[in-house]
């Protein structure tokens, strides 16, 4: 889902830069309190970021000879918080764009918006399910549903962006279905990988998974 340069209009990218810079500043300021209180979690944030980098590098095949990869926002948000997930995924996207030419440099704002802000909707689904169902079943269902929905939303927004851009000469009615048709399958991969990691951690390091009462809505 890494958008290269030369796909979206400049006005769109500038708008995304404004949103992203405000989101980064808010996340840094608000994370300060959380990270100060939970400094032992800082290595986990750095390790999760490295893990997301690797998982984004490894494509899994889907139907039609195509491939997809994990985004990982919901996974980091589950273990830490949405604000820390924003900083984590953004770090991965910046390094990918600067060093590995994976995603455009000007389009970095759109990629951060799509993969580190929009998936918040998926985390909110996870949060809601866990608040309603405070047991292991709630954790598993919430993780799967949250991860799945995060990718569907990201693909939907990406499809809308392509349809709105004057550089891509097809309307939203074409671009949104063109994206969603594949991402309904990729989202299954995201949900499966996220669930597998959460399940593993829940068995081996249950202290890393916040209890329902400790869940963070934003920071």
């Amino acid at each position, binding site marked *: 889902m890494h958008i290269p340069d030369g796909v979206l209009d400049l006005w769109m990218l500038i708008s995304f830069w404004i949103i992203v810079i405000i989101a980064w500043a808010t996340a840094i300021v608000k994370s*300060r309190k959380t990270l100060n209180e939970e400094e032992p979690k800082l290595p986990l*944030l750095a390790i999760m970021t490295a893990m997301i980098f690797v998982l984004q*590098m490894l*494509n899994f095949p889907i139907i039609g000879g195509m491939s997809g990869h994990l985004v990982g926002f919901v996974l980091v948000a589950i273990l830490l918080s949405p604000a820390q997930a924003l900083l984590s995924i953004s770090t991965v996207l910046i390094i990918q764009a600067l060093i590995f030419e994976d995603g455009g440099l000007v389009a970095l704002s759109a990629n951060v918006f799509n993969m580190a802000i929009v998936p918040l909707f998926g985390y909110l689904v996870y949060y809601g399910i866990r608040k309603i169902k405070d047991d292991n079943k709630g954790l598993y269902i919430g993780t799967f549903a949250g991860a799945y929905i995060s990718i569907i939303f990201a693909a939907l927004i990406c499809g809308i962006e392509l349809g709105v851009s004057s550089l891509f000469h097809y309307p939203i009615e074409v671009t949104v279905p063109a994206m969603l048709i594949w991402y309904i399958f990729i989202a299954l991969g995201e949900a499966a990988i996220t669930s597998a990691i959460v399940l593993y951690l829940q068995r081996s390091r249950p202290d890393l998974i916040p209890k329902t009462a400790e869940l963070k809505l934003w920071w």
Partner: protein
Amino acid sequence: MKEITIWKWLIAIIVILALFLYVPVYIAGPDCLETVFQAYGFTPLYHIWNGLIPEYQIPWIANEWITSFLSGILGIFIVFAIMYGLGKLIVRKK
């Protein structure tokens, strides 16, 4: 919370990278966005930045597994260091 042993986790991540690059999970075709571009005959209209290691391929190494693996390790340590450093910076500024 129990201590998080950084080196143990980093080694685990590197092993995952090595295994998945070796097993043919990685052979998968173009990603979906590229496929949508191809399907509608679209090529990005401008290109402003050449990455230092484009597409995770180190130019002077021919073997695809080795070049992807080395790029992955480099990326792991850069991403880890930046995130850890940024975190420390955020924590210190009370």
